[in-house]
């Protein structure tokens, strides 16, 4: 069972739920829930949790469910943060780095190409290293950054393909993992690339990877 967190202000949680349902059973977790029993993997979805006020992800990381998500992750449970979810996981210290405003300062919604860097994480196991994925991004605050001291140790999972970096992120980073590889965050939206009619099915690779872990 895959759990998809819903904060007040989440927008892509229903889409993530639908995508997850393609590979496993899935249900919504309300942000006040603190019980993750029966959950095999958690998705922290995109959107504008708490309006993104103050700083993206800053308020959501303190919502009750995030304590449970942190414990779940510490116990090795797979956790995927998408876009706003990535920001929340960085704010919560579950992933390295932070997300800064896009270099262009504007919201960018664009289909673009990614390269898989690390195919060993809980969410990229079904991919090949170097594989290209076409997945859309949509965000205003997606410029990933980590201080030099941290940078060398970071497990980069996905990069924007050359010429595709939409936000100026350091080293074209599109997604990173924690050291263990069970927590992954990415700015692109794999849940919006699971149906050929909508433009691409490449996002399914991440969900299939997750299903292998959750199974």
């Amino acid at each position, binding site marked *: 069972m895959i759990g998809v967190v819903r904060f007040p202000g989440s927008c892509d949680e229903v889409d993530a739920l639908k995508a997850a349902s393609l590979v496993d059973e899935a249900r919504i977790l309300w942000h006040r829930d603190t019980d993750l029993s029966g959950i095999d993997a958690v998705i922290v979805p995109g959107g504008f949790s*708490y*309006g993104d*006020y*103050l700083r993206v992800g800053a*308020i959501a990381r*303190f*919502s*009750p469910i995030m304590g449970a998500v942190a414990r779940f992750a510490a116990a090795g449970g797979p956790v995927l943060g998408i876009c706003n979810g990535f920001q929340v996981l960085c704010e919560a210290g579950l992933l390295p780095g932070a997300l800064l405003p896009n270099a262009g300062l504007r919201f960018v919604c664009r289909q673009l190409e990614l390269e898989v860097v690390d195919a060993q994480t809980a969410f990229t196991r079904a991919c090949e290293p170097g594989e290209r994925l076409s997945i859309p991004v949509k965000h205003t605050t997606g410029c990933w950054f980590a201080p030099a001291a941290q940078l060398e140790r970071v497990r980069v999972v996905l990069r924007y393909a050359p010429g595709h970096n939409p936000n100026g992120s350091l080293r074209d980073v599109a997604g990173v993992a924690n050291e263990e590889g069970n927590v992954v965050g990415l700015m692109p939206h794999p849940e919006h690339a699971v149906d050929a009619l909508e433009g691409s099915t490449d996002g399914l690779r991440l969900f299939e990877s997750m299903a292998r872990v959750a199974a």
Partner: protein
Amino acid sequence: MRARVLVRPKVGILDPQGQAVERALPALGFDGVREVHVGRLIELDVPDPARLPEMCERLLANPLIEDYEIVPEPEAGSPG
């Protein structure tokens, strides 16, 4: 001169950010915090501080919905 410009929502203007912070604090164990307002801080080196008000009116603040305040920066208080 190095100066700071503080820009804040005008009194009476909806400040959803301030409200969001005020509502979030109790859950972190900070009770009793009130009247939270979130605005912008702009720090800059200006050759002619006399032109700062005009700069605020035209670019740094939106006079319709924001007030601004110009503060010479403490460490650099002497005119440039």
